[in-house]
């Protein structure tokens, strides 16, 4: 459903941070390797929590995880993990912390193989944002054949917390699919951005 006053996708509610995220981030095609890496890691951190919880902690995450520099993260050891587990600015879950480290190592492995993270991800939608035209939130899928394929490929590089549902949420947020409802003003904006 959309908000009757603004036409926005109803899922973002009225929290200003969430509304701003909907209006300025969600669904905009993102092609930057490191921005995509950060977003994929944060989407994994969301598992079992609300996205707003992670969004509120985003600054804390950046400070705690060396601004998502994969080289720095790949070298994290037990002292650093103990430090992260004691840091209230992030989600303190050992599996989730280890997930970001594994993901950084997977990212670097792709780089060693000459694979750009962005091109790798976008290849699952043939490099072009898919334009959907949902009229109802209930119609929007939670995973697709593409998200299942991408999830499987990421696992082959030892990424974790990248199930097909998490990966689909990531594809929506980074504009690989335009899943703003057709009535939402952001739908047209994202469609135009995708054609540039």
């Amino acid at each position, binding site marked *: 459903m959309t908000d009757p006053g603004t036409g926005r996708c109803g899922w973002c509610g009225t929290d200003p941070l969430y509304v701003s995220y909907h209006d300025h981030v969600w669904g905009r095609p993102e092609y930057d390797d490191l921005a995509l890496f950060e977003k994929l890691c944060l989407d994994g951190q969301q598992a079992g929590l609300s996205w707003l919880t992670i969004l509120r902690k985003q600054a804390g995450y950046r400070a705690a995880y060396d601004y998502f520099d994969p080289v720095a993260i790949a070298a994290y050891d037990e002292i650093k993990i103990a430090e992260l*587990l004691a840091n209230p600015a992030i989600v303190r879950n050992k599996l989730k912390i280890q997930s970001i480290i594994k993901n950084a190592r997977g990212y670097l492995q792709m780089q060693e193989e000459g694979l750009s993270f962005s091109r790798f991800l976008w290849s699952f939608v043939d490099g072009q944002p898919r334009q959907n035209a949902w009229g109802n939130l209930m119609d929007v899928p939670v995973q697709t054949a593409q998200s299942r394929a991408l999830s499987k490929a990421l696992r082959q590089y030892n990424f974790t917390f990248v199930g097909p549902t998490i990966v689909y949420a990531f594809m929506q947020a980074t504009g690989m699919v335009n899943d703003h409802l057709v009535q939402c003003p952001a739908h047209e904006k994202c469609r135009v951005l995708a054609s540039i």
Partner: protein
Amino acid sequence: MAGTSNGYNPEPTLSVWLSREPEQPDWQALTRCLTPVEQARMDTLSPPRQLEYCHSRWLLRQALGHASGQGPDQCYPEAGRPVRSASPRGWALSLSHSHGVSACAVSSHASIGVDIEPSVRRSDWQRIVKRWFNETEQAWLLEADSATDFLRVWTLKEAWLKATKRGIAGNLQTLSVCPAGKLQGDDRSRLWAGGTGEVDGITLGVVYGILTRATAVQVPPVFWVDPPSLSREKALSAITPGRIQWWTTRAITTEGNHD
């Protein structure tokens, strides 16, 4: 006592071996003795981790070779976590790696654990202490306000968990370290001793099984080994004694077993 009247020393033969990763690695020399299982493992790693891996495995062979008297090329660990030797049989092993330095501790017949950290390492250690250490340790470490003391305690705890074969999660309080260096642990399955100190910019903690309760425990000697490097012409790796300044070395007490 560590020795008996006939001169026979029943205690395990202990030693700790350190080596810095070479800037220009001699990959052939580093990898030629890897077992097929080790080689397969190495093939799954990214290049920086490959160097760390094969350098550690090379050091393990040097350590075991020199400690046992069997040539390094004939030495190798059991498959899986490298905590026991397969050739020669029966030695306990422990590996640690930090910031380009590898350590391997060996004991002729009892469990051993080692951990190293660069002595200059600065982390958010107060947060770690408050969250994970016991109240006594919190009190003295925060009062001392010394990153050096933190690293000593940390490396001892890590070495303890390796020697007693436990993970770090939830177990950091199973060894307690007092400001005077007294150590108390929770594992009563055998007698233990441990020590921590600084050697050439490295803080090193080591914990090992002992066989007899002694007033002065045996302390492992520490050696540096030059890694095979293409930038050096020497065919053989030089071994030099590490000048270690121990902060504490002593038997670890368990409840009802105070020294």
